[in-house]
């Protein structure tokens, strides 16, 4: 992002379940909210990238039906749980490269409830019960327990921590605090993961108006947040995840989160110690702990101790998921990364209210999912 790109405004439609609203309506709400926040009319927008997984053809321009058919490029990006992050990265890069001055990245989703039926697995995996994501999250969680000494109580505590923050977020689906006992008493899904340790696919939308440095200066906005890095990665061979059946360790292997994080830190010229607030992919409790390590928030094997110290809770020294994370917001796949950007922009502007991280100047957002597709975004005041 060498040429400079700025987030001039953000918008959101609450995450939840809205059977009476289609994706066009959700997208419109988030887009209008972002335009209002930025003080930009849609007539000034030169293109739109939309992150979405589940809708059909021409979905990007279909959302624009409700805002304005101005003839600008309207491009949909499907990249699993990193769809919104990919839309944001593409818009950011186009702006930084000087191709456009004002773009919008929008994420919108109406995700079916429960296990995601189609994540790219092969037929033999699907038919033999090996074709659903929580099986692999559970294997990962079990290894966190045996290799790092993570306990089921700590897995519950990640959910407790994020629900405590989510209770303060009007855009979250679950806005109630939860106790460790409630998490441990919820239905077993894939051992050791229980229902309240897994995020719920749902509906939602979020958007960001991204402008060039020239445009940010011209508009004289002191609320613009700088995009310091926006990196993308996919899986390397041997990553046991969706839809791989095998895991192979080899020299040079890097999980896609660690890969994207390295690219982002290098691009921003900072390290994890310089980040004041993190929004990470807590698809399940163990995934958040793995992200601590892969993003460099802690040393290998130290995730449990970091959690226990309270550092990653709201009010701690290394706050992770002050929005409540996906565990309390739910995961509208294409929108989740833009939801993180929305949260970080509020945090960096000092507008996060009861969730405010004091003095936050640098924030990092991370999503990862099927195919190992991953995006890491670093924003600064």
């Amino acid at each position: 992002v060498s040429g400079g790109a700025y987030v001039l405004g953000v918008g959101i439609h609450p995450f939840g379940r809205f059977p009476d609203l289609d994706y066009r309506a959700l997208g419109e709400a988030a887009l209008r909210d972002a335009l209002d926040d930025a003080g930009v009319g849609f007539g000034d927008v030169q293109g739109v990238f939309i992150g979405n997984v589940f809708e059909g053809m021409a979905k990007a321009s279909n959302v624009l039906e409700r805002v304005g058919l101005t003839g600008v490029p309207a491009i949909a990006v499907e990249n699993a749980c990193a769809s919104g992050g990919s839309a944001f990265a593409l818009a950011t890069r186009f702006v930084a490269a000087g191709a456009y001055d004002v773009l919008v990245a929008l994420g919108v989703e109406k995700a079916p409830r429960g296990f995601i039926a189609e994540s790219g697995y092969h037929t033999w995996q699907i038919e033999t019960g090996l074709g659903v994501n929580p099986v692999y999250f559970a294997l990962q969680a079990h290894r966190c327990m045996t290799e790092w000494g993570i306990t089921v109580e700590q897995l519950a505590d990640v959910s407790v921590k994020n629900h405590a923050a989510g209770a303060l977020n009007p855009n979250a689906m679950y806005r109630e605090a939860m106790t460790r006992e409630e998490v441990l008493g919820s239905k077993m899904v894939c051992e050791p993961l229980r229902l309240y340790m897994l995020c719920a696919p749902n509906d939602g939308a979020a958007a960001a108006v991204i402008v060039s440095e020239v445009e940010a200066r011209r508009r004289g906005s002191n609320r613009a947040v700088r995009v310091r890095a926006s990196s993308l990665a996919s899986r390397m061979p041997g990553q046991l995840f969706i839809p791989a059946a095998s895991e192979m360790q080899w020299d040079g292997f890097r999980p896609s989160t660690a890969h994207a994080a390295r690219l982002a830190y290098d691009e921003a010229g900072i390290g994890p110690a310089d980040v004041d607030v993190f929004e990470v992919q807590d698809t399940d409790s163990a995934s958040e702990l793995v992200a601590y390590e892969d993003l460099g928030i802690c040393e290998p094997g130290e995730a449990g101790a970091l959690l226990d110290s309270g550092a990653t809770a709201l009010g701690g020294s290394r706050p992770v998921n002050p929005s409540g994370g996906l565990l309390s917001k739910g995961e509208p796949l294409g929108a989740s990364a833009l939801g993180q950007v929305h949260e970080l922009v509020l945090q960096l502007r000092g507008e996060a209210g009861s969730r405010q991280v004091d003095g936050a100047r640098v924030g990092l957002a991370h999503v990862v999912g099927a195919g190992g597709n991953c995006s890491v975004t670093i924003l600064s005041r």
Partner: protein
Amino acid sequence: MSVALPDLYRDRGDGTAVLAASRCPVCGFVVFPRQPWCPRCTGTGTEDAELGPAGTLVAFTGVHHPAPGSKVAPPYAVGLAEFEPGVRVAGLLTVPSVEGLRVGQAITVVAAPAFEERDRVHDTFRFRT
């Protein structure tokens, strides 16, 4: 109608089976299931390799919720087994529960029923604990 289970394993006829994998002759990378191209060094022309029948259990999970499209009903158990250092495959266990299992215990690859459909039993590989 047959089910699209590819050639994932070879039944050795002695109650055990081996997994049909590929090894890259250039970089040595092992991949399962079998495929002719190497995902690491991007070369083509991998050689057949077999994993097992003996392996070690690295991780496991008991599945309690029906998986969309699955013909295997819960509860069932899935294990991650290691066959060579760093070479691991996820597969069904022969037991339906992870009760009493421990990491590091030996497993044996076997050919065993996966599910029954229209009075026909379809086999797959499983890890016998």
